């Protein structure tokens, strides 16, 4: 009993420290990568004992700065409601990660530890459902602070999240039809093999490229970051967190990055083979190369490689998301809504029907 509890706590600590850590690193990457893309140097001033470390200490200085700032609550606003909004946003942003498998099994003391917090049959639905709850924190933040711009921002966020939330669900029906399951762990198992005589990993992206593109686009929209940052619009309406300062603002800020990581995790799990390492097979006890060679890897090594592969893939997708974020300018609200309803929705419906038709024909 206690052992199970400890294992669960350990897994939760591992996953959420990974999630938080990656989100914190993204705040640094955001600046560094944008700088490199614009041929600048980027954050490099803060240092620890004279070590610049490519500007990584900026993460700490940011936290210190946000924690020591005045926490301002506008007059007439209930303090607890004011504090609730960032809390809800942050929690809801973290929770979908619980359904995501970050590895297969880890052999530990003669026992196999499932590397997933919640092994649910409806893992994907759970993740999407929780992600769609992000709207509550946003609406609350805008509404409770009695600021017109904040309300405007949160209404825009509502319009955007609801519109794109529909597409988010439909874009994933194609892969779900293909895998025949809503269980995220089973989806990864489906992808943990190869096709084309062992040359190509059987990843969802190769079978559902359209769904991948649509999901990634909608995923960016769900994180409310550029090019879909209409609810925030830093330079014009500031957005729903207008009346927040200090670490409460920091919570909103961090939630954006956590959502980015969560979207990356979902993308990796559904389309990029999750924790599976190409050509590495746990049943065969090592790598099975396409040309017939075999490299033996001990079971613990397999598990660790898979856990590492998961984070590497998540990091790569985060990098791609940042690349997109620093390339495209913000859409106007009509453009964003049109993109969602006129392009992404038909495309995802098309993909769903196409997949269904192909599966019907092939399955006969």
């Amino acid at each position, binding site marked *: 009993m206690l052992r199970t509890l400890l294992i669960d706590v350990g897994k939760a600590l591992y996953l959420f420290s990974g999630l938080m850590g990656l989100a914190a690193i993204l705040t640094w990457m955001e600046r560094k990568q944008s700088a490199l893309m614009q*041929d600048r140097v980027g954050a490099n001033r803060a240092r620890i004992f004279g070590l610049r470390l490519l500007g990584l200490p900026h993460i700490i200085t940011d936290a210190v700065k946000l924690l020591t700032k005045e926490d301002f609550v506008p007059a007439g606003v209930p303090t607890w409601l004011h504090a609730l909004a960032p809390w809800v946003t942050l929690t809801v942003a973290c929770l979908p990660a619980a359904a995501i498998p970050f590895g297969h099994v880890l052999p530990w003391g003669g026992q196999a530890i499932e590397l997933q917090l919640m092994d649910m049959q409806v893992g994907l639905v759970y993740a999407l459902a929780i992600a769609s709850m992000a709207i509550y924190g946003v609406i609350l933040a805008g509404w409770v602070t009695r600021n017109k711009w904040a309300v405007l921002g949160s209404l825009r966020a509502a319009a955007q999240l609801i519109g794109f939330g529909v597409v988010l669900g439909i874009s994933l029906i194609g892969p779900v039809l293909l895998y025949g399951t809503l269980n995220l762990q089973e989806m990864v198992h489906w992808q943990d093999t190869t096709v084309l005589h062992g040359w190509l990993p059987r990843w969802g992206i190769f079978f559902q490229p359209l769904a991948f593109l649509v999901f990634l686009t909608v995923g960016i929209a769900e994180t409310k970051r550029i090019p879909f940052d209409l609810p925030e619009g830093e330079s014009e309406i500031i957005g729903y967190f207008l009346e927040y300062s200090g670490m409460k603002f920091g919570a909103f800020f961090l939630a954006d990055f956590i959502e980015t990581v969560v979207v990356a995790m979902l993308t990796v799990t559904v389309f990029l083979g999750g924790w599976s390492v190409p050509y590495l097979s746990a049943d065969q006890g090592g790598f099975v190369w396409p040309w017939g060679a075999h490299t033996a890897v001990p079971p613990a090594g397999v598990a660790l490689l898979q856990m590492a592969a998961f984070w590497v893939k998540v990091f790569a997708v985060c990098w791609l998301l940042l690349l997109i974020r620093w*390339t495209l300018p913000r859409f106007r609200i009509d453009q964003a809504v049109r993109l969602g309803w006129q392009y992404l929705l038909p495309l995802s419906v098309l993909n769903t029907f196409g997949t269904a038709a192909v599966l019907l024909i092939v399955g006969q």
Partner: protein
Amino acid sequence: MKYWWYRFYYTTRGVLWPLWVGLVNLFRRPVTIQYPHEKPRLFPRSRMMLYNDIDNCIGCLQCARVCPVDCIAIETVKADKDLGVTNTGHKKKLYVTIFDIDEAKCCYCNLCTEVCPTECLVMTPNFEGSVYDRYNLILRFAKITPEERAEILRKAGGKTAGVTGILARKA
């Protein structure tokens, strides 16, 4: 429907092409110069702060006359002794008692250095001209101290040979 495809094409292109450009730029070297630590390499004829090698100045006032913003203030007094020649061979017939250039007014047009017959007025590569008090931007090149100037003026009976710039203006 045709319009739909039109927009589809341009949206897709408008997303993919910038992504490619951004990706290429990601792997280019930064162009930033870490300024206080490293100085930019200036072009050979960059026009920066002025410098007057006063020992070679003959007080001909040409620089002050040509200056479009009238920021060079010179006062000369006829020499009562032989001051020698400049290193371009011009005879120095005048004391240059005041030679002030107000860099805050200067527009760095370079005209004054062009006309200078002895090439003593030059532009240096020094661009770091920021000061805490704008009067510190008045560069005083004359080597003659106020006491010496008073003595020279007294000997000349208060008569100057030429006055330009702010010195020539009526208060």
